[in-house]
């Protein structure tokens, strides 16, 4: 009883407000697609496809959300993902061990995170420049490893790649009468696990809250006795580590390494975070919002394709429009809030 009272008394925080808006819009958009377009949108598999295709994007977006909450930016995530994919493929094809390949993925991600974190927090270099260098380095290293696409031939890995979790009751009956169960890849499980872990980190752990404090007001955070340097360092380390995981998940999805893998992923991840209600100014955001941000981005693309706009440019133009809409909406909502407080 008392709980309910408390809930009614406290207005939503900025984070909660922006997240709620995103979730509502996503649900509304998906319902509209179900009603107007029908087809694939009526099957649960549509959602699973979206998750399968975007598991790695969800993972890097989580990392980016943390960095952005802390008031920073990491534009190396896509390139690191690509480097991890290439390294692991080459290692596996050379007859490596799956367990070691996972360690390689984590190791590369961690290494990038450590270097970024050190340069940004302890040498006080602008995060954009540092992670830009990281991005260049990772992309360059990927092509140095191999310019040509590499397909994973490792038997054990192939077996792992083909593991699909089947959920019969969410499936549908095809025209020939066969039941086709909903299929989910292993990568999605990893992504969901990452999502939950990061959510717990941000909501219930001291480190997570320190990220918010640092992004809210760095000077204050320092005065409140938070080790800002260490906190910032950790945000980049986590982001790097998640890029490593994302790389492996990417590989499990595509099964091949290519120099152009995950091209533009960093910007998609930033867009996901923004749509999910994370502010680049820091201090506001949540991974649940980011998750829905990713889904919103994907859904809009699917809707464009389903509505028959087949020219290649429509997908990105609508994505741009969508982004514009969310950015303006947030600006207006937060602006009105600030005005209200003043009055």
């Amino acid at each position, binding site marked *: 009883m008392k709980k309910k009272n408390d809930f009614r008394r406290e207005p939503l925080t900025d984070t909660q407000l922006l997240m709620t808006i995103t979730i509502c819009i996503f649900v509304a958009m998906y319902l509209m697609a179900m009603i107007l377009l029908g087809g694939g949108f009526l099957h649960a598999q549509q959602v699973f496809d979206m998750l399968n295709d975007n598991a790695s994007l969800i993972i890097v977006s989580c990392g980016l959300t943390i960095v952005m909450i802390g008031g920073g930016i990491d534009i190396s995530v896509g390139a690191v993902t690509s480097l991890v994919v290439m390294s692991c493929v080459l290692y596996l094809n050379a007859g490596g061990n799956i367990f070691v390949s996972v360690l390689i993925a984590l190791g590369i991600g961690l290494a990038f995170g450590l270097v970024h974190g050190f340069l940004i927090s302890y040498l006080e270099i602008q995060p954009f420049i540092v992670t830009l260098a990281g991005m260049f380095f990772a992309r360059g290293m990927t092509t140095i490893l191999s310019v040509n696409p590499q397909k994973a031939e490792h038997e054990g890995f192939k077996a792992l790649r083909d593991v699909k979790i089947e959920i019969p009751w969410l499936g549908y009956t095809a025209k020939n009468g066969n039941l086709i169960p909903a299929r989910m890849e292993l990568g999605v499980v990893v992504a969901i696990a990452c999502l939950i872990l990061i959510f717990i980190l941000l909501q219930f752990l*001291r480190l997570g809250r320190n990220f*918010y404090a640092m992004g809210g007001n760095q000077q*204050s955070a320092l*005065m409140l006795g938070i080790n800002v340097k260490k906190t910032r360092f950790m945000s980049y380390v986590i982001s790097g580590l998640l890029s490593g995981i994302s790389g492996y998940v990417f590989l499990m999805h595509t099964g091949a390494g290519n120099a152009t893998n995950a091209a533009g992923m960093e910007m998609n991840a930033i867009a996901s975070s923004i749509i999910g209600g994370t502010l680049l100014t820091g201090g*506001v955001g949540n991974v649940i919002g980011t998750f829905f941000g990713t889904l919103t981005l994907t859904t809009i693309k699917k809707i464009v394709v389903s509505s028959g706009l087949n020219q290649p440019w429509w997908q990105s133009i609508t994505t741009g429009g969508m982004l514009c809409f969310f950015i303006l909406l947030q600006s207006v909502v937060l602006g009105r809030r600030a005005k209200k407080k003043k009055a």
Partner: protein
Amino acid sequence: MQGSSLLQMHHIEKRFPGVLALNGVDFELRKGEIHALMGENGAGKSTLIKVLTGVYQKDGGEIVVDGESVSIRSPQDAQNKGISTVYQEITLCPNLTVAENMFIGRESGAWIRQKQYEKRADELLGRLKIPARGGQQLGSCSLAVQQMVAIARAVDMKCKVLILDEPTSSLDDNEVNMLFELMRSLKKQGVGIIFVTHFLEQVYAVSDRITVLRNGELVGEYLTEELPQVELVAKMIGKELDELSSLKEVDEKKTKEQAVLYEAKGLSSTEALPFDFKIRKGEVNGFTGLLGSGRSESVRAIFGADKVTGGEVRMKGQSAKISRPIDAMKAGIGYLAEDRKRDGIIAELSVRENIILALQVLNGFFKPISRSESEAFADEYIKVLNIKTASRETPVGSLSGGNQQKVILARWLLTHPDYLILDEPTRGIDVGTKLEIQKLVLKLAEEGVSVTFISSEVEEMLRTCSRLIVMRDRHIVGELKGDELNQEQVMRTIAGGDAKNGQ
């Protein structure tokens, strides 16, 4: 009640490039006392505080806490040693909740216990009568409440030494009294409080002992009851006091015959309620009232600093439309804003560029002032206003508060305004410069410039203004002139009730 020594600082030294900010300063704080730290700006108060809280590292000397010599490496370190600070600027995170702000940075273990924090926060806030709830986002509270939350945080940290650095500048009288009550009750519990403020009356209202610094050196330590206010001021500025009172020669006789320069009818902005106002050529008038009474908002409306929503304005008898700062500037109005750091200086630009800025804007985008011309202007005003700067190309942010204020004054004087609005030009600057600015205001008036002067210190306004407009609750409640211009009358009008209306 007052007891043994809690904190001693011996021969503290601190150097900055080219400056000796603290030169062998001693300071002692005893258990259960409120100790005021006084001095002009640049005297070394804030430097001393920052050394004590670990923001700066001392270059020499010794700090003794509870009889033990310690070295303080960071604000966190200071907190662990029982030294808490509440700063003038809010040093909390607006995006977190009140409870989170009170407990962040000092909990142990990796997990946070949100529920428990909120409960404890609510208890403490209730006990201290602070109108906030633990679960509320801090950014949704008023600045005053945010300040109180910062104090609550320090109180909850069971600190031995509590440093209050200008805590009252954003609080109204009611809140100040609440704070004082809190300070007294903490004192009873044996906490030593270091109180830094510019308000002399507050020092006498609450402190037991006063330490005065000047130019980075210790002047002395005194018992509050043994040091008269006048002497305190003298010790702070190192000047004899008769100079302070010699200004009072304001003549109203001349201004009466002068033409009305500026007149507003029903002027209102998004921040200010409609009001009428006029000023004659060469007149010095003042807007007074408590913080939040609408005095700053009203003059901002005159300058068009906030969005003007209505009213008629006449400048030199002609109807004028002033809705943006640039309109006001073109009409010959200059405005020195209340918040120097936020609205005044362009910190990284040089003194020269800061001085020519307003004139450049008036000249227009396509008529830049040439380098040699701007150098001449800068040199002239550095000399006239006695601005202490290494050179005209020094970034203005590195100057002391008083000199920054003079640079902004120079900026407006260079535009040769007919009407100059000075909102708190003397706040947070040293007494010597205050005096110079007051003299300058009177000199300008003599030259035929109309001036509106706002100050938190009534005494200062009485010395300079020939007419005072009193505001309360965002309305003009009185206009005082001539014989009515005395402290008592002003106070009564501000306070309301049986006050005689001066109109």
